[in-house]
């Protein structure tokens, strides 16, 4: 071996495979302004559409007059529900089994609902046209408070559902009721409560908020009348699902629909669903024969396309006096707005909310969820979380703190006492899940040791004494959160979207020179798939990640996949990549054996190629095998080196983590300071630690936003009063605290590379950590539960209500 021969370490490093902090390859174009987003798509003769929207939350539409609008120079068409009825598209199906108006059909049901679509030669003309459309409304009483939605005299919102006593998820109890979903053993749970030594009950609200990606929802639709083909460029988290939905509702053959999701500027769940803008742009293109672009503005995005949360969770825990939990009972009132447009797997009307038993060994639990209609925008998407998992985590993590307070126990100690033990995995939860793996005690103790938890508690006790003595006006809170997520939807046995099983896919094609392309059913919106997917392949088949191009988002070239949301990309598509790579490797081994003139079994894998067992100098690199695959394959073997895998996961994955937030609050102003935030995440095998850290930073920042102020708030008249970034809290570097990240590694036993997914964990675990910190700060003044979001005003109000401020 001469000096030029690379060492094994150098060969491994050259691959930049799993575990490498590889720099994001997509950032080369993003940081130079060379990304290609939907709004960058400019086609010859392209028209622009803009919506007339309802100022009323609930009103009858008596007339729509487009006469003046059509006189505006540049305005070519005004599309209304009447136009859409001619092509049977005035209503569209939702992912949750409901139907939704594309354009107001007789009534409007939420403020800013789409009423008419003005098509013009440029965006300015379209906007001028919108101003000239005259709509006559007859206002109806708005229903804003979900707790009043099922009152006997509540206004009827959905007249189209008159007489329908059964919805997509079973019986409806009231004209504004959507579904009831029940899980768990009620009798056993009620019995646990009747025997309980200690019990708590609290209505914990997770307010309505919005994913608010910086790039709003948008599309360009181009219909080719000659070929009868429709091409749609759009901000789609799930391009293939969009293609199938368009095919089903527009009755176009699926091969004649081309869906392309170019670069996406953030999705966070907002870009999963199908919106009226897409349908209207497509119809407008069919009507005019020209490409039509639709781009939402900020207000439209915040007020009309898919909100998140709005869960009101009445939560009870039963426990023994020494702090062992014995039962959990939760009732959720879910405000879905005017249409049930939740983006959940079809059979799960409340997503995976039944993960609400969290990280704890509850012997029994019962959950009931009632979904209701109100005069608010539709949605209910998973904003940086798996389906309704952040709601569940917030619910149980707040409730555990409330129980700890009642028992006069430290919240960390209560959690340690009730954690599922490492030897209990795979663990069957009382509400029906099988947790794959976990080591909660280790993670929790590492968090407590690293942060100096005991010393912080001591400091808090001293500060409280000082506060009581009047020496300080600052109070200190410690927010403990220990979450278990459920991600990677999902196994075909229980997960589908409109009947399509929630598998995902990867196709790898190796080129003769030892490079290759991987095409995916997923779609990155900033997650860095082009970087991490290549790293999995690099480790699996020994080709440097730099030599692997990753392509996503074009339904003509990508294998069918269900897209990117709910932290499913790594658990599902990541597995498909490994499986496809292993098929490549198996064929490569046969080629190598043939070339090295040995039996396949005499070969062993060594970093970037095969070597003959016992003869380490007889090797064939993967690069050379790629070449051989195109000129000298074994007799009878097809040339080429490519593989495709469709991966149907056997189970979900269950990432977890231990977070701590240390917060100081000035009671006289309500101003808080996040002194310290520590986040320990266990996402199983770590593919790219730098990307994980970036994901955790982003997720924590969104958690911080939600817990501390971000809200879609309606006034009593049904007006959205937080419809712009003036009022909707969007933290910048100025407000965002410093994040400390840490990890443990408990691989998933059923995933090919042991990875679990991480993009959303920090949002799921972060929100309760912040809220628990605020509640913990106020607890010694007598607070049991203060509702989110905890902005300065609400903190001051809490202090005032507790008598701490005159």
């Amino acid at each position: 071996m001469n000096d030029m021969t690379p060492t094994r370490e150098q060969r491994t490093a050259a691959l930049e495979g799993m575990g490498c902090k590889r720099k994001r390859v997509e950032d080369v174009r993003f940081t130079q302004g060379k990304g290609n987003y939907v709004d960058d798509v400019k086609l010859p003769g392209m028209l622009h559409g803009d919506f007339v929207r309802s100022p009323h939350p609930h009103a009858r539409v008596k007339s729509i007059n487009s006469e003046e609008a059509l006189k505006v120079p540049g305005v070519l068409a005004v599309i209304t529900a009447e136009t859409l009825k001619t092509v049977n598209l005035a209503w569209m199906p939702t992912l949750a089994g409901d139907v939704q108006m594309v354009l107001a059909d007789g009534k409007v049901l939420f403020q800013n609902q789409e009423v008419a679509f003005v098509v013009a030669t440029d965006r300015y003309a379209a906007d001028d046209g919108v101003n000239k459309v005259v709509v006559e409304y007859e206002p109806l009483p708005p229903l804003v408070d979900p707790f009043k939605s099922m009152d006997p005299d509540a206004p009827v919102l959905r007249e189209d559902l008159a007489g329908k006593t059964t919805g997509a998820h079973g019986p409806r109890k009231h004209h504004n009721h959507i579904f009831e979903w029940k899980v768990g053993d009620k009798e056993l749970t009620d019995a646990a409560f009747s025997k309980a030594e200690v019990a708590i009950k609290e209505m914990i609200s997770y307010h309505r908020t919005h994913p608010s990606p910086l790039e709003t929802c948008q599309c360009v639709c181009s219909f080719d009348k000659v070929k009868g083909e429709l091409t749609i460029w759009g901000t789609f988290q799930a391009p293939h699902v969009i293609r199938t939905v368009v095919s089903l509702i527009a009755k176009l053959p699926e091969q004649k629909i081309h869906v392309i999701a170019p670069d996406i500027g953030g999705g966070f769940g907002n870009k999963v669903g199908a919106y009226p803008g897409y349908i209207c742009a497509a119809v407008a293109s069919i009507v005019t024969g020209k490409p039509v672009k639709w781009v939402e503005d900020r207000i439209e995005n915040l007020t009309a396309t898919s909100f998140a949360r709005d869960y009101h969770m009445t939560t009870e825990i039963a426990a023994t006096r020494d702090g062992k939990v014995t039962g959990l009972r939760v009732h959720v009132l879910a405000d879905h707005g005017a249409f049930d447009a939740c983006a959940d797997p079809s059979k799960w009307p409340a997503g995976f909310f039944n993960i609400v038993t969290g990280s704890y060994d509850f012997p029994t639990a019962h959950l009931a969820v009632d979904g209701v209609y109100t005069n608010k925008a539709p949605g209910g998407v998973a904003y940086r979380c798996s389906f309704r998992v952040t709601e569940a985590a917030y619910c149980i993590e707040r409730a555990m703190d409330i129980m700890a307070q009642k028992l006069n126990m430290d919240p960390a100690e209560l959690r340690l006492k009730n954690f599922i033990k490492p030897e209990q995995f795979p663990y069957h939860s009382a509400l029906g899940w099988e947790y794959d793996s976990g080591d909660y005690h280790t993670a929790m103790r590492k968090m407590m040791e690293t942060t100096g938890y005991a010393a912080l508690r001591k400091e808090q006790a001293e500060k409280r004494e000082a506060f009581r003595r009047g020496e300080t006006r600052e109070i200190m809170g410690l927010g403990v959160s220990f979450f278990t997520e459920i991600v990677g939807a999902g196994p075909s046995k229980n997960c589908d979207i409109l009947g399509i099983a929630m598998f995902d896919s990867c196709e790898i094609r190796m080129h003769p020179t030892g490079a290759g392309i991987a095409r995916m059913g997923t779609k990155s919106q900033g997650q860095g798939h082009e970087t991490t997917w290549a790293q999995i392949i690099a480790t699996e088949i020994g080709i440097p990640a730099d030599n692997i191009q990753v392509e996503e988002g074009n339904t003509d070239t990508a294998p069918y996949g269900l897209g990117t949301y709910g932290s499913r990309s790594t658990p599902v598509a990541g597995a498909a990549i490994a499986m496809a790579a292993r098929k490549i490797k198996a064929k490569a081994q046969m080629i190598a054996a043939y070339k090295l003139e040995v039996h396949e079994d005499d070969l062993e894998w060594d970093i970037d190629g095969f070597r003959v067992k016992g003869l380490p100098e007889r090797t064939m690199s993967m690069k050379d095998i790629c070449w051989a695959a195109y000129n000298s394959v074994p007799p009878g073997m097809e040339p080429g080196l490519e593989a495709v895998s469709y991966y149907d996961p056997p189970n979900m994955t269950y990432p977890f983590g231990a977070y701590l937030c240390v917060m100081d609050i000035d009671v006289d102003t309500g101003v808080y300071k996040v002194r310290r935030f520590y986040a320990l995440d266990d996402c199983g095998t770590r593919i790219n630690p730098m990307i994980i850290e970036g994901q955790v930073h982003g997720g924590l920042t969104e958690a911080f936003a939600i817990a501390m102020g971000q809200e879609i708030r309606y006034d009593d008249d049904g007006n959205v009063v937080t419809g712009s970034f003036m009022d909707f809290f969007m933290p910048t570097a100025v407000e965002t605290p410093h994040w400390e990240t840490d990890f443990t590694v408990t691989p998933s036993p059923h995933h090919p590379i042991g990875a679990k997914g991480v993009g959303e964990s920090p949002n799921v675990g972060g929100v309760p950590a912040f809220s628990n910190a605020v509640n913990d700060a106020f607890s010694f003044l007598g607070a049991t539960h203060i509702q989110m979001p905890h902005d300065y005003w609400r903190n001051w109000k809490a202090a005032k209500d507790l008598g701490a401020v005159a």
Partner: protein
Amino acid sequence: MQMNDSQSIPASREQVWAALNDPDVLMQCIPGCQSLEVTGPNEMTATVVFRVGPVKATFGGKVVLSDLDPPNSYRISGEGSGGVAGFAKGGAMVRLEPQGAVVTLLHYDVDAQIGGKLAQLGARLINSTARKLAGEFFASFAEIVGGTSSAAKSSI
């Protein structure tokens, strides 16, 4: 949105009452009023340019006087639409209290609702805007009715 206050006006109750029923006076005093036409007994149509925060719009609508109790009180109410900017409706109970021969105390109790973009973008500005508009109205009104000077038309 609710608001109540009172304003002292240097004129007799009868003078104030007459002015309150005079469309020309109302037109001069309503901030941003472009036109005010009598359409029937105690009914008028008005065009008003209204601005809250970043939203400015021309509102067309009708104004109705009701519960008339001359020269003590009436209710003035109206509703109008500003197209994409939204809508506004509301009213004020106005009550006159003599404070001697040439001074009248005018009490007003306003209840108004706004909707659409005005409410979305202007929600936190609406109270201060309403107070400012009411202030402008009564400053003009006092000037005209008190006869101290000819009121300058309010500019927006």
